[in-house]
């Protein structure tokens, strides 16, 4: 069943502020460009381009400071479609760029020479849909093993045996091969290749970075992913909308609630349901607690990466309290599945308000300690200042999110700029940012964000009014045909859910835009010329969660 793009209102009824942009896009070569209802679909402008015009349109977007948010493939049957989502981090429309190719040739030009960040997205699309991107700089599987010969997200794929060849030795990337050859030809034997991970204490999960090292100096490195790939996006197509909720917990084990919220928001947007005021306040409190917990884990593990062991135990002690709240509220410490379609699963326990406000007071005191003992420590400053600088341009090109983005001086926060919860507008808080762009800036932003989150929690507690915690929702429901996008701000950045619905009770295609994906991708740009110790420091400062990337 081929899916048609949603019908648009006549141009005259479209919001006038995007008309100019649409005109410019058309001038640059877009074959179709139309405004979309943001409230209903979560997207502002829908652009269709031909493969030939793709670069020109993308260049236009780049010149207007649009950031790449995600890239995804959709099997439109019979055609294959690739979507690139863009958003200027600040005021401006959310734009999706659609480009199609037919099933048999399945070839498109790469966009990675305009937006470097599409590199990984295109490689993943190549794995999942079998679309070849011409002139791609690193044509190598990203998620799937290199010996697979099927494309799981195509609709005509119904499972295939994985045949592991006896000789699973992978072929290194072109640039690695070249570097090896060059080294041999020049007779230089100082340099070598070092596998950092997957079994390594500091890769935060099962990430493998193939480093090209000369002594202590890193000449370059490439990330290898896919060690904890679970095929969540394919699973989603086989599950009903409500059944999929528990899977959202398992994307990012440090902030399950933020993922719950994003998915609930997506369904609410698609079904046109509003959650109740009490539920919104509880959601906010729980999600912010999740953010605090996640940032605390970051602080502990980052210091662990830098060689200090003690802060880790203090941070986990604090986090333990938060997990206990989660357990008392939802019955689960980590995989909460608490924020559900239409509200929250159950009401909080009676002492909730008292206990949380006590915790907030306690945590403020602890933060002061961390600030003076850890963040102001001379060695910490030496290890973080000036290390791993991400420029504004890089941040936009790779679409990094969260504290990594704000640590590069762009004060974009989906909570403020695209409020998915009205309370964020009502409460008094500010978006933290730091223009320095280095590891220290990111650390600084995260530390301040914990304080802001505590502010939010404290104020939201007073807004907790009596009432139902879940709106009336159908147990099994169908989403009307169309495409929907929802954005929430997770601890690591924008969590985006892109849903293509075909009117049935299962998603036709569900893509999750995970923040760590873009945040980690930028690491390949940052490490050449640094030292092995810096790689660890940079990796830690990006606060990536690998299972989230692999999904």
């Amino acid at each position: 069943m081929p899916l048609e793009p949603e019908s648009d209102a006549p141009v005259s009824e479209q919001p006038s502020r995007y008309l100019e942009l649409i005109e410019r896009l058309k001038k640059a070569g877009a074959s179709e460009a139309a405004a979309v209802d943001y409230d209903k679909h979560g997207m502002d402008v829908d652009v269709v381009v031909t493969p030939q015009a793709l670069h020109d349109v993308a260049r236009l977007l780049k010149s207007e400071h649009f950031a790449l948010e995600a890239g995804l493939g959709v099997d439109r049957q019979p055609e294959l479609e690739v979507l690139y989502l863009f958003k200027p981090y600040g005021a401006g429309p959310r734009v999706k760029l659609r480009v199609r190719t037919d099933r048999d040739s399945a070839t498109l030009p790469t966009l990675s020479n305009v937006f470097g960040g599409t590199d990984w997205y295109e490689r993943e699309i190549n794995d999942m849909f079998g679309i070849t991107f011409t002139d791609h700089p690193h044509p190598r599987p990203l998620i799937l093993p290199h010996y697979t010969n099927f494309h799981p997200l195509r609709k005509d794929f119904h499972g295939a045996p994985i045949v592991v060849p006896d000789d699973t030795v992978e072929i290194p990337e072109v640039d690695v091969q070249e570097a090896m050859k060059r080294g041999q030809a020049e007779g230089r034997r100082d340099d070598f290749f070092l596998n950092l991970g997957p079994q390594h204490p500091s890769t935060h999960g099962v990430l493998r970075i193939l480093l090209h090292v000369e002594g202590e100096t890193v000449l370059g490195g490439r990330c290898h992913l896919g060690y904890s790939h679970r095929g969540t996006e394919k699973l989603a197509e086989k599950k009903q909308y409500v059944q999929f909720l528990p899977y959202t917990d398992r994307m990012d084990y440090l902030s399950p609630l933020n993922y719950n919220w994003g998915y609930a928001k997506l369904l609410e947007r698609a079904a046109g349901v509003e959650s109740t005021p009490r539920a919104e306040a509880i959601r906010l409190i729980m999600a912010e607690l999740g953010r605090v917990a996640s940032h605390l884990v970051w602080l502990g593990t980052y210091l662990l990466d830098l060689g200090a062991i003690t802060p880790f135990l203090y941070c986990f002690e604090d986090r333990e309290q938060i997990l206990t709240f989660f357990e008392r509220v939802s019955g689960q410490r980590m995989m909460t599945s608490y924020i559900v379609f239409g509200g929250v699963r159950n009401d909080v326990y009676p002492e909730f308000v008292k206990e949380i406000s006590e915790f907030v007071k306690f945590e403020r005191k602890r933060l002061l300690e961390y600030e003076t003992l850890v963040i102001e420590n001379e060695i910490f400053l030496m290890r973080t200042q000036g290390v791993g600088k991400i420029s504004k341009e890089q941040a936009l090109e790779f679409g990094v999110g969260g504290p990594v983005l704000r640590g590069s001086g762009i004060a974009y926060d989906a909570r403020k700029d695209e409020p998915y919860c009205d309370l964020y507008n009502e409460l008094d808080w500010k978006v933290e940012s730091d223009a320095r762009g280095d590891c220290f800036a990111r650390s600084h932003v995260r530390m301040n964000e914990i304080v802001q989150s505590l502010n939010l929690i404290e104020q939201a507690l007073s807004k907790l009014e009596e009432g139902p915690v879940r709106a009336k929702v159908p147990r099994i429901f169908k989403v009307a045909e169309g495409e929907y996008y929802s954005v929430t701000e997770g601890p690591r950045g924008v969590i985006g859910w892109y849903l293509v619905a075909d009117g049935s009770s299962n998603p036709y295609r569900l893509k999750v835009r995970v923040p760590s994906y873009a945040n980690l991708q930028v690491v390949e740009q940052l490490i050449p010329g640094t030292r092995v110790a810096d790689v660890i420091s940079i990796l830690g400062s990006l606060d990536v969660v690998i299972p989230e990337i692999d999904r």
Partner: protein
Amino acid sequence: MPDVLHNNSLIVFLILTAGVAAVVGLFVALTIFLGPKKPNEIKDAPFESGFVSKTDATQPFPIKYYLVAILFVVFDIEVAFLYPWAVSFREIGAIGLTSMVVFIAILAVGLYYAVKKRVLEWK
């Protein structure tokens, strides 16, 4: 304690070295008997984060390490000269003092030169 032990550090050193090496060797030998021996291919491969190493790890150190080593030798020998001087400092008087100040000054100038030449810039 007999004088031979007090004043002849070489003998003490040799005897102790032999003794300690024997004790340590005994311990290592003991674990060879006590510990299990179940070698397999993966266990016996060098650890590289779970990957089979593509390149050999026994290779020469980068040149900058040799620079540090040479600097160390230079300074260490100079320091070795300073020790007897320090012991006899009281006896040798003003001449000893001035000559050693000159000596240390040369040492300092050498260090300054090395720093300025960016030999010690550890990149």
